[in-house]
């Protein structure tokens, strides 16, 4: 299950189920979304294919590191949340 919030909800919709091959990682899922939605590709990745700074991620409601944890494999039933920085000040 992918949940998207704020500007990413506007691109991806609030939630969607995605079927992945076994062993697929967070990065695989993000690239699948980018392939399906050019607007998400542009919003989430820079020209070199690196994830932009303002893409924040949670797996099962725990923040993950958008650099170190991209290679984390996803399990059946995992919930990935994609969102921009919090409202802040």
């Amino acid at each position, binding site marked *: 299950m992918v949940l998207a919030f*704020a*500007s990413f909800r506007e691109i991806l919709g609030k939630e969607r189920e995605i079927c992945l091959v076994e062993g697929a990682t967070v990065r695989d899922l993000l690239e699948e979304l980018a392939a399906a939605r050019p607007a998400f590709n542009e919003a989430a990745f820079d020209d070199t294919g690196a994830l932009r700074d303002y893409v924040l991620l949670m797996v099962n409601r725990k923040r993950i590191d958008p650099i170190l944890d991209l290679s984390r494999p996803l399990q059946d039933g995992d919930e990935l949340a994609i*969102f921009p920085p*919090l*409202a*802040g*000040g």
Partner: protein
Amino acid sequence: MIEITEEELSMEELIKRARSKDAGAMVTFLGSVRDDGIERLEVEAFREAALAELESIQREATSRFALKAVEIVHRTGTLAVGESIVAIVCSAGHREEAFSGCRYIIEELKKRAPLWKKELGERGEHWVGQDEPAGK
């Protein structure tokens, strides 16, 4: 009590809940939509994650500042200029703890709770805190 709600919030109600005979001091924070050339604010929450984060913040503040009671209400949905967005009430034995606890909660909420605000007005739309427009 912690709430994320579309409903209007009543400070009187929150203050009543936080009162107790051993609480000599109560500090409240109320954040509202400021007239910054915007017409309205849309507030979006990752509800379950935000409730869990607010509960963590409440627990931290309660033990750190020996609070007697904490009330937190955050609104979501479309809010007009002047409407309340968030209310926090902390009671404690003495004022030092009540002030520190209330300040801690609003600062951590702003940093950590998965809540987003979109400003809408004459100048268009803008997600607060996001400098680069995502895909626009």
